[in-house]
């Protein structure tokens, strides 16, 4: 299995840490960021296959992150996660071409299934 690169952006330290722990166990390469600004900088240096980003963050809105990624590198899959689950936020995320949307608390098996589906490795 080729090593997919996944980026996690969430100001909650534990989210990045837990996703990293479990996804690395499955053979992914995971980098986690608390702040979207350095995360987007990093993206210029390294090619990522999938980004998992929180919707509400201090320095930059998750929606903005989504828009930047989709306008510059539309091939990167983006999964939005939020603790502030509102239907209009989900609709807005999909309208901006988000690939999936999760409300906290996240079920890791569902998140893994979504990642696998988006990276086209469902059969594996």
């Amino acid at each position, binding site marked *: 299995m080729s090593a997919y690169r996944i980026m996690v952006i969430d100001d*909650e330290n*534990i*989210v990045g840490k*837990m*996703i990293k*722990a*479990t996804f690395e*166990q499955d053979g992914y390469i995971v980098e986690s960021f608390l702040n979207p600004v350095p995360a987007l900088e990093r993206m210029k240096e390294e090619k990522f296959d999938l980004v998992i980003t929180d919707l*509400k963050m*201090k320095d930059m*809105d998750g929606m903005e992150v989504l828009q930047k990624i989709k306008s510059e590198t539309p091939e990167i899959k983006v999964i939005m996660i*939020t*603790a*502030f*689950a509102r239907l209009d936020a989900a609709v807005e995320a999909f309208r901006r071409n988000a690939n999936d949307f999760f*409300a*906290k*608390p*996240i*079920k*890791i*098996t569902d998140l893994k299934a979504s990642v696998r589906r988006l990276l086209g490795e469902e059969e594996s």
Partner: protein
Amino acid sequence: MKMVHKIILGNVLVILFIAMGYAFSSQKFDLLQNKLNFVEVADSLNATLLMMRLSEKNYFLYKDASDLPLIRTDLAKSVTALNDEKKDMIRAIGEANFNALESSLNGYEQEIAKLEEAGVYTEEMQASLREAGRELREQSASMVRLEREQANNLITDSRKALLYFFSFILLIALTSTYFFFSKMFRSLRRIEKAANSISRGNFKKIKGKISKDEMGSVMAAINSMCEELGTRHEQLIQSRKLASMGVLTAGVAHELGNPLNNISMVAQNFIELYPHLPEAERLEYMNTVLQECERIRIIVQNLLDFSKPKTADFSMADINGLIRHACKLVQNMLDVSCIECRLTLGENLPLLLMDRNKIEEVLINLFTNAMHAMTCGGFVSITTSLDEKGDYVIIEVADNGSGISEEYLPQIFDPFFSTKGTEGTGLGLSISYSIIKNHNGKIDVKSREGGGTIFVISLPVSKEREGTDERLPNHGDR
């Protein structure tokens, strides 16, 4: 006495006075009419006597005996008139004058009788008759003059009396009207003051003596309304808090969602990765769960503290600490709306005598308002300082939001006034105003549409030492 009774009494008195004036004038007019009638009779007597003297003069001039019967006729007319009008004449000229007139007439008759009897007359008889005639004529003329004078005097006196009488009535009417209306206006002013105070959300009763009239009834009604409004106001404050809870819910959902997710993810990983986890990491996972549980406990505790009804509790407190605490309470709400909170807190500020919960409520109200006026990227800036004289601590809560239109500024502290449509209860600022007023402080607003809003709160520096509560502000009247 009720006002309606006073008005009726006043009207009755005016009618009574007018009736008295009418009776007085009527009596005087009767008197005048009598006098004029009498003058007419006296004039007629005077004319008869004049005719009689003319015949007397002709008799002596032409020595014509046919003049004597003419004198006799006039004499008889005069005697009849004197007898007919005896009563009126005595009243008019007095008994002595009447008797003198009567005796003059008798004297004249005797002279005429002597003349008739003698057939011819001597110089002496002529002189005597002429003298008696002149006397009679003078007395009669004097009687008319006297009566005319009396009539004139009566008119002058009556005119004066009526002038005094109506001046007196006018004075009484003006004085009583002045006292009646000044009392009424005083009461109206007290009612106006109370109404204004109520409109500002201050439900203080009308103090002082309450009269037993209709104005007193209105004041008593206003007082019981104030009492009722005070109770309702308390209930509204409580419901306003519940409404704030609604606003806070979004923030709370986010706030609770995060630790809950953290626990869930740690637990899922713990189960899934258990065999691969070294002992130290397993412990770290469980510690993370405990930490996140504590985070939830604090959020729930804060929420409970906020929604709990609080009784007034004044104590010396540090305003900066209070502001920091209030900011923590709304931090997540601000984060959700991506609004920054900037604190510039003055150093070495004195402790203030205040009800911590109430002041915190005011701050949260102002933060919530600021948040509603802003879009993502805005800021709320809180500054504290001491005024020049050191009498007040000034707290400024500024935002760079949409501001308030100038036309709304005078109303924003009114109960139920809201620029937020159905989103706002219109009570937040009104309650804040009451709270600051109960702390003997002031709250003002400066705003420009599109140019942000600054709320300036001044809280008095207590002259008492820390720990004493002798000079508690008047907070128990609502």
